[in-house]
Structures are given as C-alpha cells and as structure tokens.
C-alpha cells in the first residue's frame, strides 16, 4: 500500500492511472455491446453525436461508441498477447545468454542485435501479407511478440551478468542449488520490476504497429481495433466529408492510450530507480 501511495504522489502516475482506468472501463463495456460489432448497417449512417448515439455513427452504419469500446478492448488484447509472449522469450533468452555466457551468449545476442538493426517493419509487412487469410488478434499478437523481445533480452542479460558476479551466487552454487532453481528463485525477483516496466513499453509498441499494419490493410478489417477504425474512417474520406466525430475518436483514444502507457512506465521506472528520483527533486 505504501508503494501505491508513493506512486500516486507523482501526478503523471495519477493522471495515466485515471486515463487507463477509463479506457479499461470502455474495454469492459464492450462485452455489453447491443449488436455484433463485426456487422455493418445496424444503425442509421453518418449521424452526429447525440444522446442516442454518444459518439455518432459512421458510413458503415455502426455506432462509433460501441465500435470504440471494442476497438480499445481488441487493441489491448493484441498488445497483451504481444507483450506477455515476448516477455517470456526475452526472459528465457536474456537469462540463458547471461548465465551460460560463451558461444551461446554470442549466438543469442547476435540474433537479438540483428532484429534491432534490420528494418523489421518491412519483414513484418511481408509476413502479414502472407498470413492475411488467417489473420486475427492472436496471430497478430504472436507475430508482434516474435519481433519485440530483442532489446529487453539484452537488458535482462546485463542484469544477470551483474548478479552472477555477486557473492550469493557462489553461496547458492556451492550449497548445491541447481541452475534452474537458482535462476528462477534467486534471480527472478531482481528481474521482475524490469520485466514489468518493459512490458508496458512493449504493449505501447505493439499497439502502434497494429495501427500501422491496419492502415496498410494488412490485418482483418472486420475486427474493430484502433487501427482498423482509423483505416475505415480514412477510406471513407471522413476528413473531406467533415465527419470529425468518426476520424477523431480513434485518433484521440490512441493518443490518450500512448501517453498514459508511457507516463505509467516512466513514473514506475523512476520510482524503481532512486537515482532518477533524486534528479527529479533536483538535489
């Protein structure tokens, strides 16, 4: 409880927490959508926001409010799959590379560095084009997770490298602790806060890429996400026709989401690293 109280003292944490809570409520509301969100033509077209249609309706004949709720939920699902699976890869790679060292370390880190250096956006476009027919939330999430582990594996590896040199490692090894137990029981607690703060960054990255791939038409356009909503609005010339309520909904929601996730991760990692905390106070 004390941790939370300390965190809430940071206005950025408070603000982003509230925004995320709001978006989460939208995501939960999506389970009460009065019609199937993949259907079109369920409500009158192109209506301005009113008391019946909170955020208006679009040219597809869908209620933008309910579309937005589903979009937020689906974007969060994609980013959670991508974030969690890539965390598992990053932890495994980082720990094995850091603990084993030698050529295992060199090979694993070479693959990681290659992923950082190669313009993976293009590789992802190629992959997405080929799996277009099977594309859904899970496939997209897994695809993103496959590309999103490299940097964080490097961070975890360097943490393990420093932990391996500490006294308690020797004590544990000499008193007969197995490698897996040592890594899991002794090292994991050190890595957990790091994993958590990189998870948030990774989720934000995944949502951004989903939007980009959706704009290129490379995801399933019938499933509402922040990206597909924006794509439909652009394709139906919502800007030129002046349907501001349609184009602004996904833009504003994603801007809020990105800023909230970033501020949350910054305030948490500042809290975890006392040096930056001191800098903020200005000592």
């Amino acid at each position, binding site marked *: 409880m004390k941790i939370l109280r300390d965190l809430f003292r940071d206005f950025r944490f408070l603000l982003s927490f509230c925004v995320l809570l709001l978006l989460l409520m939208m995501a939960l509301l999506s389970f009460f959508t009065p019609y199937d969100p993949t259907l079109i033509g369920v409500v009158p077209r192109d209506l301005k926001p009113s008391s019946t249609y909170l955020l208006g309706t679009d040219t597809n004949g869908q209620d933008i409010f309910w579309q937005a709720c589903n979009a937020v939920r689906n974007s969060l699902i994609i980013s959670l799959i991508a974030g969690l699976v890539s965390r598992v890869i990053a932890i495994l790679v980082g720990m094995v590379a850091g603990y084993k060292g030698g050529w295992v370390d060199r090979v694993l880190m070479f693959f990681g560095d290659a992923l950082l250096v190669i313009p993976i956006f293009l590789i992802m476009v190629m992959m997405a084009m080929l799996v277009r027919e099977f594309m859904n939330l899970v496939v997209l999430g897994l695809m993103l997770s496959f590309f999103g582990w490299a940097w964080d594996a490097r961070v975890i590896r360097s943490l393990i490298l420093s932990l391996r040199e500490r006294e308690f490692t020797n004590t544990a090894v000499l008193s007969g602790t197995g490698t897996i137990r040592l890594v899991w029981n002794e090292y994991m607690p050190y890595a957990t806060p790091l994993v958590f703060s990189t998870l948030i960054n990774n989720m934000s990255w995944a949502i951004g890429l989903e939007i*980009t791939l959706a704009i290129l038409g490379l995801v399933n356009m019938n499933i509402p996400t922040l990206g597909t909503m924006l794509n439909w609005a652009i394709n139906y010339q919502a800007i030129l026709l002046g349907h501001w309520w349609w184009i602004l909904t996904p833009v504003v929601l994603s801007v809020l989401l990105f800023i909230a996730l970033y501020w949350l991760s910054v305030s948490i990692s500042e809290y975890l690293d006392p040096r930056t905390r001191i800098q903020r106070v200005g000592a």
Partner: protein
Amino acid sequence: MNFIKKYLIPRLVSYVLVIFLGITAVFIIPRLIPNDPVQRTIQALRARGSLLDPGTMDGVIRDLTEMYGLGGSWLDQYGAFWSRLFRGDFGVSFFQFPTRVNVLIGTAMPWTLGLMLTTTFFSWTLGNLIGGLAGYYSRKTWSRVLDTITMVIRPLPYYIFAFALLLLLAYVVRWFPISGGTEIGRTMDFNWELVKDILWHSTLPALSMTILGGAVVFQTMKLIVQNVNAENFVQYAKLSGVTEDRIVTKYVIRNALLPQITSLALSLGQIFSGALITEIVFSYPGLGYLLYNAIITGDYNLIMGITVFSIVGITTAILVVDLTYPLFDPRIRYS
C-alpha cells in the same frame, strides 16, 4: 594493424552476417507459409476480372514460378535467389507491369533518402543541442516546459503523430499542402520553381519526423548531460573559474555526445521505418509510398525488392556510423 584487428574486422564480420541473416529471412518467410504465391497471384488476376484461356494460363503459371524463383529444390532456389540478388535483379513489378522493380526503387529512392538525411541531421543536431542545454540548465522554467512537451510527443508512433499534424496544419488551418511531393502534373525539369515546390511539399513530412525524432534525442541527451554534470571534472572546472559557455560546450556536451553517436547508429533502422510510414501519411513519392502501392496491389516482387534494398542500405549506414566512432572518441586508440 591493431585497429583493423580489434575494431574493423569484428564489425565487418557482423555486418556481413546480419545481411546474410536478413536476406535469408526474406527468402524463407514466403516459403514457410502454406499457400502458393503463384496460385494466389492467379486468383488475384481472376478476381480483377481478367479472363485467360488455359494455354495462356499455363504460360503465366510458368512465368510466375520462374519469377518467384520457385522451381527446383529449396537449395537450388536459394542459390538462384542469391545469384539474382548479386546481379541486382528483382524481377518485374506487377503493380506497374512491365517496369522492372529496380527502376521503380531507383525513382523513389532519392525522395526517401533526401527526407531521411535532412530529418536525421536536424533532429540529431537540434535534439542534442537543445537537450544538452536543457540538461545543463535543468532547473530553469524553459527546460521544464520543454521536458513536459517531449513527454507528450515522445510516446506517439510515427503514424499517429504525422496524421495528427496533417489534420491540424493541412485541414484545420490550411498552411501546408495535403499530399504529394510536388503539385499535380508538374514536369520534373530542373528549375527554381520545382525546387521551391518540392521543399514546400516536403516541409510537413520533414517537420513531423524532425519533431518526433528530435524528442527522443532531446530526452536521452538531457539525461546524459544531467549525469555528466554531476562528475568531478565539471565541478573542478566550475571551481577553477572556467566560463560557463566553455563548460557547457567543451566539457559537458562534448562528453555526452559520444553515447549519442552509438544510439544514432542503433536507431537508424527505426528512423527508416518511420520515414516509410510518414511518406504513406503524406502520399510522399518515396519508398514508403511505393511500398503502400505494392501492398495494396499485392505486388510481392516489389515488396521483396524494397525489403532487400533497405536491409543492405540500413546495415551499411550503421556500419559507416560505427566506423567513424573512433574519430570522435579520443580514448579509442589502436596503435
């Protein structure tokens, strides 16, 4: 000699290996997916309503198989793939049949290169300069205001930021053109009018990339400078009466710049992807827009060509930045 052995050789080896790995991925990915690109292309042709008699169809299938390099075993295909790449041959584009992929990439390349070079230069220089000053004077109000602004801009992805800027500056207040690299129908003879037109159309894409890239550079630079500031030699310089301007430029910023060169090299790939995305937002006639059209029309050859070109280009650029590093860091000496 030592420089070559310790610095040059490892970098060259990893350069070659990364290119090898990337291009092998480009080769393998389409072959892992359980559907036949030839059949898919035929289906796409049919869906567009072109009717072909069976004889022509067989010919088309043969041509496509050869074009995709799908004849023979995987090993044969792999060998053929590399020999085509070494000849710089990416086949024919479907989207603008029968223009060769090389020609399309060649016309689009200068646009992307120009956009990327200018924006990288501006965002890196301005970001480091302003970030350095803001880090040194971190308690001044303007420094805190800039910090808050970057906290808002930094997390936005290229697409959303460019799109928001487009909405704001081209639709709401009509200061800038909405799309394109020049006015529609302008001929490409070189004259002053053309240069002005291109600059005018490039301002908004360049602005969005510079602000977004600069925000990242600003933040890291500010953090590094704040750390350098706490070092003993800066305190010593202050106490021995070195002027403040001199401390900022010669002592603090100069030391903080070194890690920034490394991070520039590491972020080139992302900047490039960002350039592609920004071009799509502004319909700017570079590689990104070409990629967009290739995706829309399912032009696989063109996408492959762009990807291979980019892998080679980006890794080479990173190698060059990496190799210039010893010039800036006097501590690295291999003699």
